[in-house]
């Protein structure tokens, strides 16, 4: 506990603020997982829609940041770690789902939105190859101006290849904003931006929560292959690998039988076939047809 914190605690605050803090404390204590989400730039109507969509699985609670901080510190027992993420326009989100499910849900609820002049591109902005559907006119020049490969073809303006017109972190110009708007390109993803979640004793960063299920599936397959390989190569038979070991042993025996031309009934058909193949291979090297029987003449 820092000094400023203890000072703040002793500070008397208006009753309505204390009531709000008490409610926030209840909120935090009532969910298995509590996260901090950024809500910057989300139009209020969209925010309403998102809250509705999440209804039943997650609840968004907004308040003043100072009160959020006070509530989190009051609950303590790990939740105070979320305080570092209370910065700018944020809200609390609570769920009884696991934090991974929460992350997935919040990602899914993000929607594309247009970007305005003066905003910073959150990711590379690409104008895709294709017909813009715009009639020939000055727009082709505007496209070229912002860096898109564009020309007039077959009576309309076409972008001839995917063109990255702005890189992540750069500021959107007025011209670009106009072009994007004309093309209907919405490069932003707007939504509740999960910054951290505290769940049953563990603080998760978004990176922790971004599970790539395909990667896990691939890992399982690698693990199975590793175990299979080890079992077979070290000759530690298991129910799963015994057939492979048997097949391997049989293959070795056959390979030896063929290589050594062992006169065993098992190998005879293969040995005969091998002799015949050798005969034909040798015959193929003989130029003089006189030296060959009819059936081997090329």
């Amino acid at each position: 506990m820092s000094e400023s914190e203890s000072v703040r605690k002793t500070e008397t605050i208006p009753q309505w603020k204390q009531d709000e803090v008490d409610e926030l404390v209840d909120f935090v204590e009532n969910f298995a997982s509590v996260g901090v989400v950024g809500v910057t730039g989300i139009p209020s109507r969209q925010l309403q829609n998102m809250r509705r969509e999440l209804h039943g699985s997650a609840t968004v609670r907004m308040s003043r940041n100072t009160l959020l901080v006070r509530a989190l510190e009051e609950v303590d027992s790990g939740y105070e770690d979320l305080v570092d993420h209370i910065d700018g326009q944020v809200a609390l989100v609570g769920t009884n789902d696991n934090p991974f499910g929460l992350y997935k849900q919040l990602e899914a609820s993000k929607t594309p939105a247009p970007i305005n002049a003066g905003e910073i591109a959150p990711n590379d902005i690409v104008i895709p190859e294709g017909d813009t559907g715009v009639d020939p006119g000055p727009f082709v020049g505007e496209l070229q101006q912002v860096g898109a490969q564009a020309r007039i073809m077959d009576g309309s303006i076409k972008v001839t290849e995917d063109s990255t017109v702005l890189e992540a972190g750069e500021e959107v110009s007025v011209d670009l904003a106009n072009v994007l708007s004309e093309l209907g390109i919405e490069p932003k993803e707007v939504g509740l931006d999960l910054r951290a979640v505290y769940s049953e004793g563990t603080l998760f960063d978004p990176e922790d929560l971004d599970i790539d299920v395909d990667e896990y599936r691939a890992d399982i397959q690698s693990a199975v292959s590793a175990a299979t390989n080890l079992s077979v190569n070290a000759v530690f038979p298991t129910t799963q690998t015994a057939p492979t070991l048997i097949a391997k042993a049989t293959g070795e025996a056959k390979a030896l039988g063929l290589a050594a031309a062992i006169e065993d009934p098992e190998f005879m058909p293969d040995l005969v076939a091998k002799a015949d193949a050798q005969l034909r291979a040798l015959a193929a090297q003989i130029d003089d047809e006189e030296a060959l029987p009819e059936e081997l003449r090329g």
Partner: protein
Amino acid sequence: MEYVYAALILNETGEEINEDNVTAVLEAAGVDVEESRVKALVAALEDVDIEEAIETAAAAPAAAPAGGS
């Protein structure tokens, strides 16, 4: 990979792949278990058809080393 191996042992023995069980297996192997990784594993495997993944892997053992490294 040890987290995945732990899950596969549990799968093999028919035990539930949950945080407690995975943690127990890893701790028995002397792993300094990271709770968040265990949680991520358990959550991720909820969406994976383990038997299917095993069968596809078993069918193509040769391909393994590529994937494994």
